[in-house]
């Protein structure tokens, strides 16, 4: 009897590498995987078949679609996104998404199949050196050639992906490791000797920062995705409310603070708001929280906030003094830092200084916003569509955008009441990101309205994912802002290249018919009077829906800080 029992326990522990992968994923609470099978990952897909009850696998139409979907899922839920692909082309098709996740700090675990370890380096069928290829764009990667390495490798992968400043991790598993056997004992990873994800908070730096903030006459807060990744939205709001400091967001910081919050003064950077750009060069203390001074935010560094003392709060020591010199740097976890900072900060309200922002808002309203949101004539503008969506969703929708003019307009004008509601490709600017990311966001948040706003160019870069939306019956609402141009490039050609429209005009197919082919309802409009009804129809439709809006072909996005110019040279026309 005793012998029999031991045998059963043994059977339970002893398993295959492929099975161990699935068990590890389940131990890490993975319930959704995006991927695409192929030869070198077949044993893992076979194991997946066995665990269908525990783990859902979404078959995309391209590996790039799979990874963007995982990114959308991760950004919408705060969980680690999981992707699977086969060796060779399967793995290389992930690279754009991995690079995107790296630069936008998105936690991902990518699992790729690899040829058998005896074939490594032999130019075997579908062999690529994905470890070397992915090295510069992963936070960590590792090749597993023996089944018994799998539990530890996967535990480390999840820990590294989600801890500290998150990022993508790739685990490459040779076919023999998938077939091999091991005793499966899984322990979550909690520490790695050479890895310190959260630097220790230095209280003396923090008190110096608080002192500077307390003495400031014209303090200005710039916040980024660090606030969202650190789950510190509440602490951030309490801090700015106590200190009364006007606060502007980076593209990825969007939705961390509700749009209608009185201290939310708008967006920073190239197509950001007028006041935040102008007043960057007027403030006396610049307080950067969880942001990295991207060149699209700063414009010309030589003329960026030279008058101000700069305080930089970040979790990543390598961000300090990378682009903008900090007078005071405070490293640490965003939430912890903000709680402590709020304790040391004095109550304030800065009424005169805040009035300056309002003055700039009025100018922008008059010269830019009105024309964009309430045009009296001409073709429908992108802003009108976004505004029309706002009227229906009241700030509750989750917005996913692609890259280009529509992205800037949608992020400028969409209203948000809650965090993790804007998902876009920021750092890498990956066209084709939106459609699959929206699918992932909706699958992670089925109860929320997810609206994908896409340009006609980006839509066609991953249009095949309509097939995944169709097969999974995911109720993503797709809004195509169609100007038959690669609009942002065309805008630059108009403004900086004498209107020489080199390869930017597009002859597009009938998008509604394409959607119909995938069983997705749709409508195309180009008349202003149809707009609101069409938006209502889309939102009330049960299931996915595609709304194509023909917008002004040669409309431009303003304000604009021309490339290489100073933020104070922001143009309104």
């Amino acid at each position, binding site marked *: 009897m005793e012998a029999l029992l031991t045998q059963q326990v043994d059977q339970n522990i002893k398993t295959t590498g492929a099975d161990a992968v699935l068990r590890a994923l389940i131990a890490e609470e993975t319930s959704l995987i995006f991927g695409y099978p192929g030869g070198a990952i077949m044993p893992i897909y076979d194991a997946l078949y066995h665990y269908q009850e525990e783990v859902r696998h979404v078959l995309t139409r391209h590996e790039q679609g799979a990874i963007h979907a995982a990114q959308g899922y991760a950004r919408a839920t705060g969980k680690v996104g999981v992707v699977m692909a086969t060796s060779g082309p399967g793995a290389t098709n992930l690279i754009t998404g991995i690079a995107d996740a790296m630069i936008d700090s998105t936690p991902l675990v990518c699992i790729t199949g690899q040829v058998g370890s005896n074939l490594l380096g032999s130019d075997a069928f579908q062999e690529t050196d994905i470890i070397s290829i992915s090295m510069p764009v992963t936070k960590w990667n590792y090749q597993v050639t023996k089944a018994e390495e799998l539990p530890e490798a996967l535990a480390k992968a999840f820990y*590294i992906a989600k801890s500290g400043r998150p990022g993508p991790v790739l685990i490459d598993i040779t076919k023999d490791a998938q077939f091999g056997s091991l005793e499966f004992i899984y322990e979550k990873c909690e520490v790695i000797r*050479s*890895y310190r994800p959260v630097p220790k908070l230095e209280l003396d730096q923090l008190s110096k920062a608080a002192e500077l903030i307390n003495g400031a006459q014209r303090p200005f807060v710039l916040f980024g995705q660090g606030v969202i990744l650190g789950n510190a939205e509440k602490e951030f709001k309490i801090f700015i409310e106590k200190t009364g400091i006007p606060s502007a967001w980076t593209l990825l910081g969007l939705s961390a603070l509700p749009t209608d919050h009185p201290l939310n003064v708008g967006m920073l950077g190239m197509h950001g708001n007028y006041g935040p750009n102008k007043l960057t060069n007027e403030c006396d203390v610049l307080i950067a929280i969880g942001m990295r001074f991207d060149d699209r935010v700063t414009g010309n560094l030589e003329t960026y906030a030279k008058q101000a003392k700069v305080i930089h709060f970040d979790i990543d*020591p390598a961000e300090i003094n990378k682009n903008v010199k900090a007078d005071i740097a405070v490293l640490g976890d965003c939430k912890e830092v903000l709680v402590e900072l709020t304790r040391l900060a004095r109550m304030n309200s800065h009424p005169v200084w805040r009035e300056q922002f309002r003055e700039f808002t009025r100018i922008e309203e008059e010269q830019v916003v009105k024309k964009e949101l309430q045009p009296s004539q001409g073709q429908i503008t992108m802003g009108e569509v976004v505004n029309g969506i706002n009227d229906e969703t009241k700030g509750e929708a989750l917005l996913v955008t692609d890259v280009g003019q529509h992205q800037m307009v949608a992020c400028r004008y969409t209203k948000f009441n809650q965090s993790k509601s804007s998902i876009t490709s920021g750092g890498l600017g990956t066209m084709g990101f939106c459609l699959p990311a929206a699918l992932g966001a909706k699958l992670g948040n089925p109860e929320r309205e997810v609206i994908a706003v896409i340009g006609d160019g980006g839509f066609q870069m991953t249009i095949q994912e309509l097939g995944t939306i169709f097969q999974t019956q995911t109720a993503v609402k797709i809004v195509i802002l169609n100007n038959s141009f690669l609009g942002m490039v065309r805008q630059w050609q108009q403004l900086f290249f004498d209107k020489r429209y080199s390869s930017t005009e597009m002859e597009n197919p009938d998008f509604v018919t394409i959607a119909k082919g995938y069983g997705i309802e749709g409508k195309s409009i180009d008349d202003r009077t149809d707009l609101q009804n069409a938006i209502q129809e889309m939102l009330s439709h049960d299931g996915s829906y595609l709304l194509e809006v023909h917008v002004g072909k040669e409309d431009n996005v303003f304000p604009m800080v021309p490339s290489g110019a100073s933020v104070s040279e922001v143009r309104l026309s």
Partner: protein
Amino acid sequence: MEKSFTISIFTENSIGLLNRITSMFTRRHLNIDSLNTSESELAGVHRFTIVVKTTAEQVKKLVLQIEKQVEVLRAVYHQDDETVFQEIALYKVSTKSVADGNLVEKLIRDNHARILSMEQDFMIIEKTGHKEETQELLEFLKPYGLIEFVRSGRVSVMKPMEESNELRKRISNF
């Protein structure tokens, strides 16, 4: 202004880490002057010594990015006067051309070099020192029919005791 910096990197011993580290130089269009990897005095800890010519600003940022890598325990950079460093060079010369007794003696004495191996056709001279010193001997030997020359990467230890202790302190917590 560009200067020569020695970067010392202490890492776990894992496959591919060399690639990960050198790609960070490639990405910044930096040419590596020399590179050496070896064990360190700490069990399981490997040590990279990389010499690169760049600005103080750039090296500071680069080292922070290197230290950020998951398998890097610590990365530091120094200027030449803050470290003690050596390189080794081997010279293969025709025995006949330097066989004049006086010349060989002068060569060995003046250069603190030594003869590692002597064959009928060739001999191998070894010299350790800074690059300028091994270079000087190279120039000296050129007229005598130098057959082969090779110089190692720099190895370097840092002078300040606190820095040597810092890593030990970090690791001992594990």
